[in-house]
């Protein structure tokens, strides 16, 4: 497993937004992680924790303040050659949160999906283009006649499928899914998640799955990174994080998930965590390995305390 080459490597990424001369929002502060080909990396955290910012920095919607982003061996954090840029724009795609807002209401679904093909001239003639669009529509569970419709004629779940189709048509190696299911109903969420898993199995694309709903993230992700206030506080495989959460923030996140089991849930209260009263300083800590790939942001003392507390807790 060790020799695997990461598809995406984010190294010490910092993304600051200067608001005024005196005040700068540090949306992402020193975050590093890796995504391997064909896996799903879940980024979780509350709103304002910087998870969307990371996604947007990776796809070059923002210019990083510091740090490196390496995609498929190419540094994509600074200036890039035209050829590299072109490669990046086909191989990395994004699925957005609100399926109504991210589809052009005046374009037919066929044109929305086909836009990438048009720009990169990826078809020989019109018949080829239509065939490609029809194939992708079938893959996401829509009928070929849907191509001639407009976004408003679809339900929320179907629109999200159009969003997925648009990302898939370029055969990307990495798909950044930014809260792509949060705007959908529960029963539709499950359909979209299943679809994303099927597509991954078929195409081998890697996902960066950004969400705040830990139960869905657990379901879809191979590895998870927990973000809080712009810092990556804990990362590891899904099993490691859920079986043995070490950081108090991760624990409070996990304890906040309501279980659909009334007899248990009625009595349970969630754990409370407040950064400002906890006395933890994220700037002082560094990522320390617990076991395997499981790492936590802590100072030496905190690390001792938390890992020991964990043993007592069990």
């Amino acid at each position, binding site marked *: 497993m060790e020799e695997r080459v990461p598809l995406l490597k984010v190294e010490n990424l910092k993304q600051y937004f200067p608001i005024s001369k005196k005040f700068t929002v540090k949306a992402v502060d020193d975050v590093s992680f890796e995504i391997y080909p064909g896996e799903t990396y879940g980024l979780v955290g*509350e*709103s304002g924790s910087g998870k969307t910012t990371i996604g947007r920095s990776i796809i070059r919607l923002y210019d990083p303040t510091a740090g490196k982003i390496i995609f498929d061996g190419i540094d994509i954090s600074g200036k890039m050659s035209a050829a590299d840029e072109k490669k990046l724009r086909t191989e990395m795609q994004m699925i957005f949160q609100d399926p109504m807002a991210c589809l052009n209401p005046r374009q037919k679904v066929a044109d929305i999906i086909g836009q990438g093909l048009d720009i990169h001239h990826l078809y020989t003639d019109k018949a080829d283009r239509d065939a490609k669009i029809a194939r992708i529509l079938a893959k996401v569970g829509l009928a070929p006649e849907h191509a001639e419709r407009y976004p408003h004629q679809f*339900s929320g*779940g179907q629109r999200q499928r159009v969003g997925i189709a648009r990302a898939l048509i370029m055969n990307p190696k990495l798909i950044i899914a930014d809260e792509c299911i949060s705007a959908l*109903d*529960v*029963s*539709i969420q*499950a*359909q979209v*998640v*299943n679809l994303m*898993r099927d597509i991954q199995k078929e195409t081998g694309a890697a996902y960066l799955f950004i969400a*705040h*709903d*830990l*139960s*869905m993230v*657990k*379901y879809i992700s191979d590895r998870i990174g927990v973000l809080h206030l712009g810092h990556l506080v804990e990362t590891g495989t899904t099993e490691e994080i*859920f079986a043995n959460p070490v950081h108090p923030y991760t624990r*409070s*996140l996990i*304890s*906040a*998930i*309501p*279980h*659909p*089991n*009334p*007899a*248990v*849930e*009625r009595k*349970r*209260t*969630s754990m*409370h*965590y407040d950064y400002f009263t906890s006395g933890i300083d994220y700037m002082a800590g560094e990522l320390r390995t617990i076991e395997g790939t499981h790492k936590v942001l802590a100072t030496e003392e905190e690390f001792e305390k938390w890992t020991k507390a964990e043993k007592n807790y069990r």
Partner: protein
Amino acid sequence: MQEKGDFILKVEGLSVSFATTAGKVHALRNVDFAVRRGETVAIVGESGSGKSVTVKTAIGILDTNGKVEAGKALFTFKNDNGEEETIDLLTLTKKQMRQTINGKRIAMVFQDPMTSLNPTMTIGDQIMEGMIWHFNTPKKEAWKRAVELLDMVGITDPEKRMKNYPHQLSGGMRQRVVIAIALSCNPDLLICDEPTTALDVTIQAKILELIKEVQQKLGISVIYITHDLGVVAKVADFVNIMYAGKIVEKGRVDEVYYDPKHPYTWGLLSALPDLETHDERLYTIPGSPPNLLHTIKGDAFAPRNEFALKIDEIEEPPMFWVSDTHCAATWLLDDNAPKVEMPKELRARIDRMLKEAK
């Protein structure tokens, strides 16, 4: 669990339709439900199932194109002379509702705290507004009570916060303020319409715990509208599951979660991601909800139901009572129906939940 108090709100045979450019949408079809004093009742359903419309109709804030076709909403309360009184809320005019019911007897917490607070008023003024309007409370007294309320909903430094504007507070704090406003007139019934969907998970848990605590302290009744079955498990005593404008199953939380009878409830429970097992695929209910523009023949859920019987396409199922408090609208419970058990994955999960509960 012991029976709690008398009925405070009883909705009977409520049917509501909306006039739209595309035609008449039958949003509610013969909805019955009741809330007892001191009880928490949840209404669960997908978007468009009519859960919000039900309570909006009951408290007279239905959109202008909506029309009540039939039904009653009987509300029992102590009037200003201290006598018990029962009135049909649907017979009151909008003005009467405003003056005697809304805010005073029945208060509502909406989904998004940013849109339900007035950005140009301090939160103190917004909490006091209702008290002054409904009870002519002297300003000093209202101020005192507002500070108490803020303290009760867990806002630190309440006196300082009174002068803050909504934009100075975080999302969770704003929702706490909205709850304080709702509680300011000592309502008998609090309606929470998806109170936590716009909030983060950690804050969601805090707000739910707060509402529960307040409810126990004040002994009021709460109606919860949500699509999250995890939330329901945490707060509710009684659940109503809605599908396509109808209540398809209702009962005590334990009955509905541990012994669900309606195939739609089976689907909803199965579709929840399970934290214990790592299944290959999530269960999904095939298809999508019916378009309520068309009249529905038979059981609205039949096209998505793998257990559907022939009769489902012909006749709408009545409510079959499983116990005194638990009933479901599915032909599967009819004496002549073949015996169909819930999917075995769900059975296994429920068994595991029961074991965990012990």
